[in-house]
C-alpha cells in the first residue's frame, strides 16, 4: 500500500506492506536510524517520535496509520548544528549514560513540555513514565527537563 508521510519536513512516499510497523518504516525504509527499537512491546519508549506534534511509540503504530501525517524524529529536532533546547539541556545536565533511551527520552520530554511548560519535578517523573532508562539515570534526566523548562520560560 502506498504511504506518504512528512518526516522532519521532508515528504516520503513508499509502497509498504500493511503490517509494516512505523518504526521499521522510519529506520529501514527511510533510513533514519536515530529512533531506536528497545522492548518492542510499547513499554520502554525508546522508539518515541512525534505524530502531529504529540509523542507516540512508533513500535505500536502501523506505517499505514501514519499515512498523510506529520512526523518528527530525533534527527529533525536540532536546527542544523544548533541543538534543540532539550538536547542542549540533556548535554549540560549529563542526562545520559549509555544513550540508548536518549532519543525517545528527548522526544517524550519535548512533548511533555509542549503540554505542560512549567512542570513540577513530580509531574516530570510521571510525565516520563512511558520511557525506561536501563542505566537508571533518571535523576539527571529529570534535572535536564526541569532545566529546559526553566531556560525556556
Amino acid at each position: 500500500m502506498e504511504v506518504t508521510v512528512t518526516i522532519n519536513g521532508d515528504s516520503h512516499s513508499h509502497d509498504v506492506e500493511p503490517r509494516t510497523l512505523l518504526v521499521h518504516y522510519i529506520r529501514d525504509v527511510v533510513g533514519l536510524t536515530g529512533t531506536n527499537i528497545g522492548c518492542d512491546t510499547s513499554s520502554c519508549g525508546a522508539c518515541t517520535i512525534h505524530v502531529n506534534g504529540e509523542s507516540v511509540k512508533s513500535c505500536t503504530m502501523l506505517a499505514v496509520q501514519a499515512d498523510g501525517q506529520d512526523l518528527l524524529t530525533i534527527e529533525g529536532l536540532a536546527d542544523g548544528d544548533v541543538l534543540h533546547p532539550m538536547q542542549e539541556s540533556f548535554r549540560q545536565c549529563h542526562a545520559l549514560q549509555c544513550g540508548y533511551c536518549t532519543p525517545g527520552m528527548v522526544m517524550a520530554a519535548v512533548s511533555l513540555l509542549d503540554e505542560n511548560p512549567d512542570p513540577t519535578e513530580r509531574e516530570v517523573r510521571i510525565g516520563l513514565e512511558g520511557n525506561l532508562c536501563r542505566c537508571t539515570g533518571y535523576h539527571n534526566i529529570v534535572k535536564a527537563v526541569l532545566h529546559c523548562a526553566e531556560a525556556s520560560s
Partner: protein
Amino acid sequence: MIPAAFDYIRAGSAEEALAALAEHGDEAKLLAGGHSLLPLMKLRLATPAVLVDIGRLDDLSYINDAGDHLAIGVLTRHRDVETSELVQSQAGLLAEATSHVGDPQVRHRGTIGGSIAHGDPASDLPSVMLAMRATLVARGPGGEREIAIDDFFTGFLETALGDDELLTEIRVPKMPDATWGFQKFNRRAQDWAIVGVSAIVANGNSGVGLVNMDSIPVRAAGVEAALAGGASASDAAEAAAEGTNPPSDLNAGPEYREHLARVLTRRALEAAGR
C-alpha cells in the same frame, strides 16, 4: 516483532466499516488507536485476516453534554478525555482513571472505545464504566442498539458486540456532585493494575468496579449491597472479593489479589468520603 500478514481496509465512514465487517465477519478486526490490538498482533496472539482501520472517522471523536449524561464518541483519545473540562466536572472519576491508562504516549493514541471494546479485565476504564453504570451504543446492519454495561462483558476479551457491529458511543451519567476514588496497584508506573478499584458515591447510591479480579471486568456487588445497608467503608470493603475468581500470574496469586481488592476498595471508598 512483526504481525502476521493481513489485508488492510481504511474505512472512510462508519457505513464503510460496517460493510467491511459484514463482508469479512469474524475474520476481521477493527483498528482504532491500536494500543490493545497491535501488541497482541505483534505477539501473534491475534492474527486477523482483515484489519478495518476506523482511526480516521473523526465524527466518532467527541465529548458532548447530552442532558443527563455525557455522550463520548468511541474514537475519543484518552488524552482528550483526561483533559476535558466537561469530563472533569461531570465525571471526575473517568477523567482521573483515564489519566492512569498506560503512559502519555499510549494516551495520545489509545481511544476510550477501543479500550472498552477490547474487554480486557486488566484495563482501567471498564471498572469506571461499571461503577458509573454507563450505557454503550452499538451500530450494526439492523441499526443502533443500547447495551447496559452489566451486559457487555461476556468472556475473556469477549463482549456482547456482534462480529458485524461497531461500538459508536459511550454514555456516562453526569454526576457533578458525586464523590469518588480510584485505586490502582502496580509494580512499575506504567504497568497494568495487579488490582484496581473504581468507586463512586452519589445521592446515597454507590458503584464499585474492579480491575483484574476475574476473567471479565466485574462489579463488587457485595460492597455495593453492604453500603446500601449502611455499612462503613471498612466493613463494606471486606466483601470486595466476594464472588470473584481472580487470575493468577507472575505478579500475584488469587489470595493476594483478594487481599488487594479489600484494601484498595476501602481506600477508594474512603477517598469517596464513605
